[in-house]
């Protein structure tokens, strides 16, 4: 299988030591928007990790509103203020706080943070709760033109073209059934495993997780056929898109 490297010019991000904290910070997309769940552990350590996590997915979160779930944790007013400060430093607004702690509720009310409803308890206790960080995808049946932008925490499937000047930022994979000539960021929540495929893969810039690449500067060559791009050994590479 031939591999066509897409000149990687930068590699950002931290060493891969996120395994332990994944259990404590969960980011997911819901019908109502982005939700971040903070688990157990030392509060300041948790905030530092959240900060690192948000730094990694800077472009994805910028300007968004999130809902926070702190579960049973007792939060004081200064602690909640610290959290809001961390979010604000990434240009994120705290839309609602979900908590079952009375202390945290009082702190939220004092800071005029809206309280969200806790997640509904599954009616059947045996029902498995989906464990993925994101579970919703989006199917778009049109062409994204210059200046149009799509942000989605889950996977994105586009039936149509992505023209130069358009951008797609997805938490999961991006599949374009058409020509991809704009900017795409797959795995924007920090997932280097994400893939991007298109019938004609000619993005101005391609990002997967923390990796960035540009298309090679070749002149309009003959069509290469459908391709899939993924991160391999720290570089974004494109390969022919064939059935396995």
């Amino acid at each position, binding site marked *: 299988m031939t591999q066509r490297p897409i000149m990687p010019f930068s590699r950002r991000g931290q060493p891969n030591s996120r395994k332990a904290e994944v259990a404590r910070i969960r980011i997911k997309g819901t019908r109502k928007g982005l939700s971040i769940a903070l688990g157990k552990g030392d509060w300041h350590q948790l905030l530092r990790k959240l900060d690192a996590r948000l730094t990694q997915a800077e472009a994805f979160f910028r300007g968004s509103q999130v809902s926070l779930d702190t579960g049973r944790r007792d939060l004081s007013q200064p602690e909640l203020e610290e959290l809001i400060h961390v979010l604000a430093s990434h240009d994120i607004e705290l839309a609602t706080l979900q908590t079952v702690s009375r202390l945290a509720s009082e702190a939220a009310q004092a800071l005029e943070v809206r309280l969200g409803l806790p997640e509904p308890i599954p009616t059947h206790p045996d029902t498995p709760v989906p464990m993925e960080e994101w579970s919703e995808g989006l199917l778009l049946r049109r*062409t*994204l*033109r*210059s*200046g*149009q932008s799509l942000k989605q925490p889950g996977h994105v499937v586009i039936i149509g*073209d992505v*023209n*130069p*000047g*358009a951008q797609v930022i997805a938490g999961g994979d991006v599949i374009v059934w058409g020509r991809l000539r704009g900017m795409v960021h797959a795995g924007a929540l920090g997932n280097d495993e994400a893939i991007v495929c298109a019938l004609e893969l000619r993005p101005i810039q391609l990002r997967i997780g923390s990796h960035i690449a540009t298309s090679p500067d070749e002149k309009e060559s003959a069509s290469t056929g459908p391709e899939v791009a993924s991160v391999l050994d720290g570089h974004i590479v494109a390969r022919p898109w064939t059935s396995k």
Partner: protein
Amino acid sequence: MPGIAITFTSGKGGVGKTTVTANLAVALALLGRRVTAIDTDIGLRNLDIVMGMENRIIYDIVDVVEGRCHLYQALIRDKRFSSLHLLPASQTRDKTAVTPQDMVAICQELKKNNDFVLIDSPAGIELGFRNALAGADELVVVTTPEVAAVRSADRILGLIESIGKGSSQLIINRIKPSMVRRGDMLDTFDVIEFLAIELLGVVPEDEAILIATNQGIPLACEAKTPAGQAFHNIAYRLLGEEVPFLPIFEEPETLFTRIRRVLRLSY
């Protein structure tokens, strides 16, 4: 039966919106249709110059909106064609002097007494563009075969979509057949393939246009130049007739282009 309002827009400046608007207005008037052209480029008007009516402006669109005159007092009648009028823009004000609601009202009124209301949009994507779009029933995006102009056209089409306006058609202006033949210029198919909208016409680069524009006599009056012919063809297409595209723009048919063409037909 009320007429239709068509806005000519491009995003990028200098691609020939005003020239196209003026020439199509004349071409449609030549075919006996009642036409009013509106210049919405307030503060930077030039449709009046291209149409040779600059010295006859008394009232303008801002005077109409602000109630200093009746709409029909502001219209300037063309000296050659009595069915052709211009509603000029004001030169001393800016785009904020007119709102999209004003434009809708003006277009509604003009459509009662015209077959075509042609609206010349200013460059850019700000208020002036939105004003020009507000009263339109149909949109024509004008571009030149340059990458920058085509990208702007794509952006404009995206904005038109988001505003919720209906179908748009495309005019490719200032194409140089010799450069296309040498492969130094985007050809019609490249542009259409990229923008994926219906083609209304292709206008060749023509020195006669520049001369005519400077003299304030839209070229379509003397049809026998390549560009004049192209404008006449577009006018017929606006009237719903099928006119084949001028042969000059077709690619020399090699085996490869033939395959491309056949594949394209099957879309």
